[in-house]
């Protein structure tokens, strides 16, 4: 046996690591980089164009406005990773909300049970879509287009023509419209940094135990410090009174920890569990997955179930924000959800993308909406710009895929 040493990408100083990162970016593994750049550029652009953009109130609004889109985009990541699509995610959320309202208000069911029923409805929908896609092999585009049309009808039947139901449950309304006490924001940050630190140290100890190279520990601390400073600034701003009237508004919106928990669990599942690994594998090469013994159909069905269930969560946030459920809810947001995921760096071809990409993408889409609104441009411009950004992102996706796949020709 020879002593050839094989690198693992964990060797070397911080400088080597930075160099390796830039090399990966050049070879097409850009991840969320284009979206983060776009986010920064747009923020600079809008703050120079509108005096209202960089206000404390708008800062908080931006997070709240993007929350439901962010959760929907996170939901779609699971099916996009398979190279599939769920056009029905928005209306699934809509019907889920209609079910919630009807159960709660018409039939007097407990709010919590109604929420659980709505989520169960989401899972069931995902299961049925998954059966069509995975077992019968109907293209997901067609199946979910069918559900998209059918569920609009279901919404009308459940709520009546032009029907609107108010959501009068304080606990539900609070999610999007109330804030945590100031101390809770800081606790949130400490928990986040603490958990990240523990996971980082845990990974290192496993690598050391296996006798493998580890990245310089300073990198972990730099990353955590970065997180602590950015998070600290955000919380400090959110904890100040941002009200324009007498009644004070301060604190981190309640929806933020909810989104963070969803992203954390989602990332954990994708990166560290067998299911996550198989999801990427099936998205990359289903035949290879099948031969490796993966139950491809089961993975596909599970992905659609997660997507539809999370979509209902996003619908719940929507109902909470506007305080009502209408019979047209969810028709248009699904396309923005797909756009957010793709803009953030999730590949439409499957196999590439993370939870954070969906979040960044949702922020980009929301910031365009928010910023253009503040400048006072007509709504038409908003659609044009969002569409342009989406085509741009999809182009980057296709090009980077070509580049990283093109190396097969390089012998």
């Amino acid at each position, binding site marked *: 046996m020879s002593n050839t040493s094989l690198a693992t990408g964990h060797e070397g100083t911080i400088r080597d690591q930075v160099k390796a990162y830039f090399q990966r970016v050049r070879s097409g593994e850009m991840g969320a980089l284009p979206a983060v750049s776009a986010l920064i550029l747009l923020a600079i652009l809008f703050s120079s164009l509108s005096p209202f953009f960089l206000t404390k109130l708008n800062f908080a609004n931006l997070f709240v406005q993007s929350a439901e889109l962010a959760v929907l985009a996170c939901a779609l990541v699971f099916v996009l990773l398979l190279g599939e699509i769920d056009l029905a995610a928005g209306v699934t959320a809509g019907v889920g909300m209609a079910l919630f309202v009807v159960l709660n208000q018409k039939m007097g069911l407990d709010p919590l049970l109604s929420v659980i029923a709505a989520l169960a409805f989401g899972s069931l929908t995902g299961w049925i879509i998954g059966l069509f896609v995975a077992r019968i092999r109907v293209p997901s585009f067609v199946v979910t287009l069918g559900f998209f049309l059918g569920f609009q009808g279901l919404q009308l039947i459940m709520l009546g023509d032009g029907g609107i139901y108010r959501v009068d449950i304080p606990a539900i309304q609070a999610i999007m419209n109330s804030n945590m006490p100031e101390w809770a924001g800081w606790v949130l940050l400490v928990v986040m940094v603490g958990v990240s630190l523990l996971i980082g140290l845990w990974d290192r100890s496993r690598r050391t135990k296996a006798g493998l190279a580890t990245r310089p520990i300073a990198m972990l601390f730099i990353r955590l410090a970065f997180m602590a400073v950015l998070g600290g600034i955000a919380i400090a701003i959110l904890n100040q009174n941002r009200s324009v009237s007498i009644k004070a508004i301060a604190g981190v919106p309640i929806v933020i920890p909810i989104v963070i928990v969803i992203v954390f669990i989602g990332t954990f599942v994708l990166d560290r569990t067998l299911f996550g690994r198989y999801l990427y594998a099936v998205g990359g090469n289903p035949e290879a997955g099948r031969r490796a013994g993966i139950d491809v159909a089961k993975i596909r069905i599970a992905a659609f179930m997660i997507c539809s269930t999370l979509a209902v969560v996003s619908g719940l946030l929507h109902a909470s924000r506007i305080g009502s459920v209408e019979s047209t809810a969810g028709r248009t947001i699904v396309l923005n959800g797909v756009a957010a995921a793709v803009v953030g760096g999730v590949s439409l071809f499957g196999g590439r993308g993370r939870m954070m990409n969906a979040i960044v993408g949702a922020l980009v889409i929301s910031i365009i909406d928010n910023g253009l609104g503040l400048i006072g441009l007509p709504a038409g411009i908003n659609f044009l710009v969002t569409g342009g950004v989406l085509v741009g992102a999809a182009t980057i996706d296709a090009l980077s895929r070509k580049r*990283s796949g093109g*190396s097969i020709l390089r012998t």
Partner: protein
Amino acid sequence: MDTPLIELTGIKKSFGPVDVLKGIDFTAYAGKVTALVGDNGAGKSTLIKGLSGVQPFDDGVVRFDGQEVHLANPKQASNLGIEVVYQDLALCENLDIVQNMFLGREETTTGTLNEAAMEFAATKALQSLSVRTVKSVRQKVSSLSGGQRQTVAIGRTVLRNAKLVILDEPTAALGVAQTEQVLNLVRRLADNGIGVIIISHNLADVFQVADYISVLYLGGMVASLATADTNYNDVVGYITGTKSLEGAAS
């Protein structure tokens, strides 16, 4: 000579009225490379599919390490230590080398993936084959060349403690330098004590790497030769059917 690692006697397989394998005998030894050659339709793929358990043989005796075995499904074959590297390699381009090598057999601790253990084992498996061509085991497969991909696929069989590795056209579609790399790898695989069966249309490769050459012609095994005792023209003759072991032209 030692007990063969795998010994087939009187193997038959037919699809409806078509007899694809007409009672063939075949042996392969641990630590040796046995080439399986033959023209299109000679029955090479059917033989391989039988060995891997994908399409079980109809009739005949299979002995593995001297023991009679039944290869009724892929699971039984892989439990015995028979691994096939198909021509399309079955790799996920979006995953890295370690992830591909462990696909379907991931190591977990308390329900989560143990990346460190897998990385260690994958590195060791590649080192046992003296792989030098790969920069990092955490490279995505999409960034690898054809030869490097073949390396990953072969490394995966080592990781699974294969005793018999069957390679289907490993050098097809590779350039000169990469073919050389892969053939070296095949040689080292055998040097590590693994029995290797290599299917190839390229006789230059076969003569370079194989210890034995078995020739299939229209479903029958027409010749099983030691590479040292034969030559290029004879093998071509067996493959095309102009020559048989008895020396009679047909």
